[in-house]
Every structure is written in structure tokens, then in C-alpha cells.
């Protein structure tokens, strides 16, 4: 399968801080590739290297068949980029923003309208409104339209859904799915684990290191132990009790429940006696399927959360 991006051994430091360390990955043409990681993991730095805005200290990156440091001029014509911050002119209206970006890339809105028509239909009612007065979700759709207006082969979206409400996020991902049919390779980063499931493949990244690259399903399946979900009326007390339990390997709050792994095959009498000793009688512990977040926490070595 032809590769949209081939990266090998990318390192980048800012002063003494190592932002990226030996980043190697391949992205296939036409896939939605997600970089998942917490804030400060190095996602934005990596994206700026992909978009030729930064030069790596070492390592090489080939994008759309061009070397990213030498061929940046040609690359920039084929790339759509949406930075983490809203990259719109807030005093320009929706229409003016779109027309401006079209003219910058030497095209017109009309020429590529079919590509953005789906997205644009959401914001068209507000086309004479200044971009600064749009809601977060609307801004995001406008920014996406602007990044797509020149029909790029590679679309780079840095945390496009951060600060956007849940409904808009779902809509946004549905729009990205639709873009796939035009053969556009989409590279996206997000701090939200639930969004990882919507990518074709994901890379987990933390502290400038790649932890794992695989399809979301395989990443989940990579979870090495049985995972249990525990609930009780007093969640906090349950958490404290489980932390002190000698058979606990890892335990952390997860939504309204608690996720834990145990050294024993399954929670047995020993555990329930321990809990009632601690005065917790309403605890229910059931086996559950690991999500990406669980795998991510496992990879990050958060198991040690037990003995801080």
C-alpha cells in the first residue's frame, strides 16, 4: 500500500527538553490515522514537523513522496492544516475566511465546493457572521472547510475537537469519515481516548515516545490481563480500600466506576472478606472489556499507581 508519510527516527529537542525521541511510523494513503496522547506528549511538535513548520534535529520524514525538509514548497501546496488553535480571522465573516483561504491556494470556493458542501451546509446559515461570533463547533467546521478548500491530498488536524461540545464532536468525526471517500489521508491528534476508536489506526504517544501503533481494536486487545470494573455506593472509599489490597495490580477511577487488575484469576472470597472488613458491603466487581484508555494507562506504566 502506498505510504502518505514515512517517518523514521525523528528527534526534536527544545533546549534541554526532549520533545520527540526516535519517532518512527508509517501512514498509509487514504487512512485516518490518530495520534493519541495526553497534553504535552509531543503531538503538536510532531504535527509541526509533518507540516514543515519545524525541522527535526535528526531523523527523516517523507511525505507524499517528498522529503519534508527539502521539498517543503511543493508539499505545502498539497497539505491542509488546521492548527490546535482556531486559525481563523475572527473579524472576517465565514464567507470571507473561506474566500481568503481559497485565494491563498490559488483556487476558488466554487471549484472545490462539492468537497466541502457537506461541512459547509452546517455553517452556511451564518455565512455573513464574523468568525469570532461563531460557536466552538461552528468555528471548527469553518476551519475544516478552510483547510480543505484547495483539495489537499493530506489533511493534518491538530486536536480538532478540543473545546468542542460532544454533539459537534460526533458530527465532526462523521464528516471526517465522509472525507475518506475522496482519498484524502487524514492525520489527526486528540487527547480524547473515545475518539481513537474512530480512526483506522492509532499511535499512542507519551513524553515524546511512541508507545504503540495499531488498529484501535488491536490496541484494545493488547491489554494483557483481565480487567474488572468495581462499583460501590462510596466510590472513594472503595478506591482507597482497593489500593491497599495486596492482590491489586492496578486500580484507577474510570468514569463512574473503578477499573482494576488483580494478581488472582478473579475476585474471590478473599477480596470480598477484605472489603467487608473495611466496611464496604455493597461492592460489585464484574469483568469488563478493556478500552483504549486502559491499554494506554497500562503502557504508560500507570500500574504503579497502586504504590505511589
Amino acid at each position, binding site marked *: 500500500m502506498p505510504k502518505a508519510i514515512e517517518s523514521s527516527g525523528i528527534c526534536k529537542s527544545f533546549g534541554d527538553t526532549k520533545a520527540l525521541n526516535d519517532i518512527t511510523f508509517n501512514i498509509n494513503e487514504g487512512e485516518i490515522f490518530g495520534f493519541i496522547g495526553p497534553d504535552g506528549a509531543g503531538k503538536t511538535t510532531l504535527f509541526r514537523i509533518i507540516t514543515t513548520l519545524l525541522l527535526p534535529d535528526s531523523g527523516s520524514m517523507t511525505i507524499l513522496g517528498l522529503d519534508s525538509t527539502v521539498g517543503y514548497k511543493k508539499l505545502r501546496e498539497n497539505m491542509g492544516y488546521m492548527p490546535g488553535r482556531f486559525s481563523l480571522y475572527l473579524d472576517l465573516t465565514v464567507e470571507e475566511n473561506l474566500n*481568503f483561504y481559497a485565494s*491563498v491556494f490559488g483556487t476558488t470556493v466554487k471549484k472545490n465546493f462539492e468537497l466541502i458542501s457537506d461541512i459547509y451546509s452546517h455553517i452556511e446559515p451564518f455565512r455573513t457572521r464574523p468568525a469570532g461570533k461563531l460557536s466552538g463547533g461552528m468555528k471548527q467546521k469553518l476551519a475544516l472547510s478552510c483547510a480543505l478548500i484547495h483539495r489537499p491530498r493530506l489533511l493534518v488536524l491538530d486536536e480538532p475537537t478540543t473545546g468542542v461540545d460532544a454533539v459537534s464532536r460526533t458530527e465532526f468525526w462523521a464528516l471526517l469519515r465522509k472525507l475518506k471517500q475522496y482519498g484524502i489521508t487524514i492525520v489527526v491528534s486528540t487527547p480524547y481516548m473515545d475518539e481513537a476508536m474512530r480512526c483506522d489506526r492509532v499511535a499512542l504517544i507519551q513524553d515524546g515516545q511512541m508507545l504503540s501503533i495499531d488498529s484501535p481494536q488491536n490496541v484494545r486487545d493488547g491489554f494483557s490481563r483481565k480487567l474488572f470494573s468495581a462499583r460501590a455506593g462510596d466510590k472513594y472509599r472503595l478506591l482507597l480500600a482497593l489500593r491497599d489490597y495486596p492482590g491489586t495490580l492496578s486500580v484507577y477511577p474510570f468514569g463512574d466506576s473503578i477499573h482494576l487488575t488483580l494478581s488472582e484469576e478473579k475476585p474471590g472470597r478473599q477480596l470480598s472478606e477484605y472489603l467487608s472488613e473495611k466496611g464496604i458491603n455493597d461492592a460489585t466487581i464484574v469483568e469488563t472489556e478493556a478500552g483504549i484508555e486502559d491499554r494506554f494507562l497500562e503502557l504508560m506504566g500507570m500500574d504503579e499507581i497502586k504504590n505511589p
Partner: protein
Amino acid sequence: MKRFLGFVRKEFIHIFRDTRTLVILFGLPVVMIILFGYVVSTDLKNASLAFLDLSKDDVTTTLTDRICSSGFFRKTADLSGHQDIDRILRSGKAKAVIVFGENFGRELESGKKPRISIIADGSEPNIATLVTNYATAIISGFTQQPTLTNQSSAPVIVPEVRMFYNPSLKSQFMFIPGVITMIMILICALMTSITLTREKEFGTMEVLLVSPLKPVQIILGKVTPYFLLSFVNVVTILVMSRLVFGMSVKGSLALLLAESMLYILLSLSIGILISAVAKTMQQAIFISLVGMMLPTVLLSGFIFPIENMPEIYDWISSVLPPRYFIVIIKNIMIKGTGFAHVWKETLVLAFMTAAFIGLAVKKFRIRLQ
């Protein structure tokens, strides 16, 4: 070309939608001209004078009238004795007191030297000097009238002073070229550096960089609207100075406008350079104001003559573009000289412009830091 025009259009929208930018662009020049033209005037007009007339004869009355009808002075009080002088000066009701000695008229007619003194409020040295100079001029002009003095007395030799180019020594003639010089630096350097750093701060520069736009296109697109608007500004100031202060351009208007364009270009390139160095709008504003505005006001010869400065300031000012432009614009506006007299300064400006533009384009980063 289409990309470039699209960019220029966007830039114009920015300017015309932002009231603050508009105020700085068009309000500031008008306010500055009015301010420097009227308020910061160094001309004497209706200065308050008190009189202590100890002889009270026809001559002193005529002389008092002569002084007060000159337009420079206005009589605010008649004093009755020496003890009032200190009081009226302290109260600020008079800038100076003119004291006629006893038997003023008789002594003048008999060829003796009558006693007259001017006591000025020295706490405002500039005004005191002006008041005494103007008053002395009127009084000596009066006493030398042949009808008053004895015909047989020796002729007094008084040089006839004439001010060329600015016969009435209007200070606006000094300030208008200075204000043009200052405003151009302010608007061009400040506004372009702000507008470029704004793109950096708002993150839109990232997208512009990841577009096929060349650095030259970005810079020119940013600068063109300001170039046009600054030119409109120069014309506005010239029209205003003509209508409000009656100051017309003595020399060639075409030459003046051409020189202004060169100077605007120079200021813009300084602005681009500032934006290449500054990371935020605040930095850009600071550099423009402290680095450009202050030296322009203080060291370019706009207010304080360079000839009176210590040598070191002279050197510093010789790298400041405004210094040369002030010479050019004063020559053309006030003296009416042609290109032959300002070519050296023009050459310096042209050289500086080329250097700054070269440096700015070279410094413009095609990547983030």
C-alpha cells in the same frame, strides 16, 4: 497575482473593521497636527502684561497702546506701585510687568535716556525670553521714531532683520514637517509590525506558512494597504496644513510626494523587521514606540536642533532615517529647493530602505522557531 490581491483585500477588511486601527490611522494625524499646530505653539499670542506707569503722560499712554495692539500682548492690570509687581507675577495674572520711570515722556523728548524696565516671570524661561524679546522690539521701534526724538541726536544704527522662508517665524512651519515625519514612522512601523505579529499571536501565521504563499507575497500583501493609506495620510496632512495654517508647499509637490513614498517604504520595511524580531504584539508595540518614536521626536532634529546636541547624540541621530527626511521635507516645503539640494539625503534614505528590506526578507522565517 490573484493570491496577492486576495491577501490585500483581506488586509483592507482587517483595517476597516477595526475601529482602533482606523483611529490610529486617520484620527492620530489630524489630532497631532492640531495639537502641534495650536497647543504646542511657541509663538507669542495674547501674553498677559501688567503696566506700572509712574509718569502717566502722553508718550507712555501711546507706547502702552502700541504694545497692546501688537497682538502679542494683552493688558491685564495697571499697577499702582512697585510692591504690586511681585504679587501680580506670583498670581500668574501677568507674564511680565513693564515699568515706565518717572518723567518718561519729558526725558525722551529732551534726548535723555528715559528709564523703562521689563520684569518677566523667569519660572517659565521660554515665555519670559519671548516676552522680553517681543516687548523690547516694540519699544525700541517706538523710541526710534524721528518725531519723538530730538532731530539733532546722533543716528542710531539698527539692523533690519528679515526672516527668509518663514517671515513671521510661525512655529507651525517647523512642526508640520516634523509631524509628517513622526506620523509616518509611527503608522508604518507600528502598524505593520503589529499586523504581522498579530498573525503570529492568533496562530493564523501557521496556516499562512503551510500555504503556497511565498514570504514576499505575505509581506507585500501586508504592506501594500498600509503604503496606500499612509500616502493618503501625507496628502491629508498637506491639505490640512494648507487649509488650517495657510502653509503651502513652496517647492515641487511631485518631488515632495515622491520623497514621502520613499520614506513610507523605509518605515514599512522597519516595521517588517520589527515584526521579524518581535514574537508578540506587545513586543512589537514596545520596540516601535521606544525604538522608533522616541528617537524620532528627540533626536531627529524635529524639536531640538541637532547642532546643539553633544557629539554622541549627533552620531546616534545620523543612523535615524527621520533625520534625513526632516531635512528633505523642510527644504521642499519651506525653502522650496529642488532635488539638487536634497539628493544626498535621498540617497541615504534609498540605501537604508534597500538594506532594511533585504534584511527583513532574509529574517522572515519560513518555519516556526
